């Protein structure tokens, strides 16, 4: 197990390294030089004030989404659950966009964005909970209702954008999910939030592992399943809201990462929750690096210097492909 952690950590470090050199205008040699204490003021500014916080925010948001996804899938016993398809992410986006559009929050008051995203995420999850009704325990029904809820929330977000287009520039970033332009302020807000709720999620690892066995077994083994599930959902919503407030609705990370983490670390969540955090960090960081590299290639090919590919577009494509795989082999057997 510790070897798997070591391999993944090494992979994350490699992704982080690529991310640091992937941007335009600085060769790897220059980056190395700046890291060693050299470089001129501009280069130092780019690396330490732009690229480093962006890297950290990508790592943190990825970890949040990975853990949130695993918590959701375990608490709902649903391999198709993820913050994106259970109304949590679209709700958080709506919250953030609405608060910004109404002038309650913005770049000057980033904490308000987190709170608004959290409220929105809770509302989205609650909406799904009410809509799904008795079909809650059925993964397929939850997925269908999740699509409905996501569509409705997405529509509401679009309405807010039409009514209050003033802050449009910053708002669009939440819709796709991007690490572009993330600075130390975002990181300072993200890490305590992620750490606190991540720790809370880990403390629930025992009950969550038991919830994976099904409510009947969990209850017979002495777990108050409904209470444990409510606490777990709270953690998942808070973690998702933190990530959405920092980088926006990164598509499918929360759905994809838990499957990778479970495949690597197994079903004991004491190990797999930290594992999902690491996988999530590696995936988002790697996708961001890949997005930057391909932006450079695309920009050269298309001869448009300002073209940038948002990382959310990349994770959405990757995640959709994986979702297809999961749907094809979702287990429905009982014993």
């Amino acid at each position, binding site marked *: 197990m510790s070897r798997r952690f070591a391999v993944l950590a090494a992979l994350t470090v490699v992704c982080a390294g690529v991310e640091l050199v992937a941007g335009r205008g600085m060769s790897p040699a220059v980056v190395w030089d700046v890291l060693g204490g050299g470089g001129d003021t501009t280069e130092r500014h780019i690396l330490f004030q732009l690229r480093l916080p962006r890297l950290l925010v990508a790592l943190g948001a990825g970890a949040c989404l990975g853990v949130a996804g695993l918590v959701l899938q375990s608490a709902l*016993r649903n*391999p198709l659950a993820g913050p994106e398809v259970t109304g949590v992410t679209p709700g958080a986006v709506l919250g953030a966009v609405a608060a910004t559009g109404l002038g309650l929050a913005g770049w000057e008051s980033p904490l308000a964005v987190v709170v608004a995203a959290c409220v929105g995420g809770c509302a989205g999850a609650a909406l799904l909970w009410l809509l799904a009704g008795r079909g809650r325990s059925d993964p397929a029904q939850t997925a269908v209702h999740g699509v409905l809820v996501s569509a409705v929330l997405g529509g509401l977000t679009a309405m807010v954008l039409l009514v209050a287009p003033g802050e449009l520039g910053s708002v669009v970033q939440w819709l796709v999910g991007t690490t572009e332009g993330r600075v130390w302020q975002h990181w300072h807000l993200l890490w305590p939030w992620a750490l606190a709720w991540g720790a809370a999620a*880990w*403390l*629930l*690892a*025992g*009950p969550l*592992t*038991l919830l*994976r*066995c*099904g409510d*009947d*077994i969990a*209850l*017979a*083994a*002495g*777990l*108050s399943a409904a209470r*444990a599930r409510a606490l777990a959902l709270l953690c998942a919503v808070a973690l998702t809201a933190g990530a959405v407030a920092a980088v926006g609705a990164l598509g499918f990370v929360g759905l994809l990462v838990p499957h990778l983490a*479970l*495949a690597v670390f*197994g*079903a*004991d969540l*004491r190990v797999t929750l930290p594992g999902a955090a690491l996988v999530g960090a590696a995936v988002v960081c790697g996708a961001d690096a890949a997005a930057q590299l391909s932006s450079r290639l695309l920009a050269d090919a298309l001869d448009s210097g300002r073209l940038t590919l948002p990382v959310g577009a990349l994770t959405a494509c990757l995640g959709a492909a994986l979702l297809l795989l999961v749907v094809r082999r979702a*287990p*429905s*057997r*009982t*014993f």
Partner: protein
Amino acid sequence: MTESVGIRAEGVHFGYPGQPVLRGVDMTVEPGELTALIGLNGCGKSTLLRLAAGLLQPDEGRVLLAGDDLARLSRRATARRVALLHQSAPAVPGMTVRQLVRQGRYAARGPLGMLREGDDPVVRRALRDVGVEQWAERDVDALSGGERQRVRLAMALAQDTRVLLLDEPTTYLDLHHQLDVLQTVVRLREERGLTVVMVLHDLAHAARFAERIVALRDGRVVADGTPKEVVTPGLLAEVLRVAGRVGRDPEGGWPVCYPDHPLPALEYENHIH
């Protein structure tokens, strides 16, 4: 009998809106006894077992465990005293046998105790009790039906309770594995002095392995006694709605049923007794 671990249902009523399930059940299970619950589908035997495990609360009456009202115990406190093996369980993707059996320790260890490393001796003993140590690191979902049932029995045993409730533990198993599971239960009960209540579909198993048979019909107890007293052609007709004969096993002496054909369902189901 309030000081030892027996179970007692007193005037238990339970139902869902518009659908009564149990209509006044009185039943006493003596400490250390092996009791079989029998009856047709929907007669309320599984419901009675869930009430005895504290998973449901009676609408009227009460269920006592060693003299304590289950309604006053928390879920975890109840699970420290009673283990229930459900009839079926969903798949648990990626979970190994040892991990699943370890989940049985939740009631004893609590949410934070489960975070600590290591199995306790109870988990090792439970794996040994049902003979699955050699598969401990295999995936539960990769096992055969009979093997999985033993693993689930081990999870219930890991709760280390004095009372073991089994809801049709032999469903879906072939005869070999049915006897395997039942013999394991009988052996452990003798070794540990467990109180065991099983819902059984197969009257042959009930007549052979149980010391006492409680028959339910329409949410009421209609027969209660040793297999020799209870298993009669009358019981076959009244409780199981089949016509048949009853003989004796030539070596063991326990009743053996020879069911013949099903009887038509009665119109006034509620007034049989």
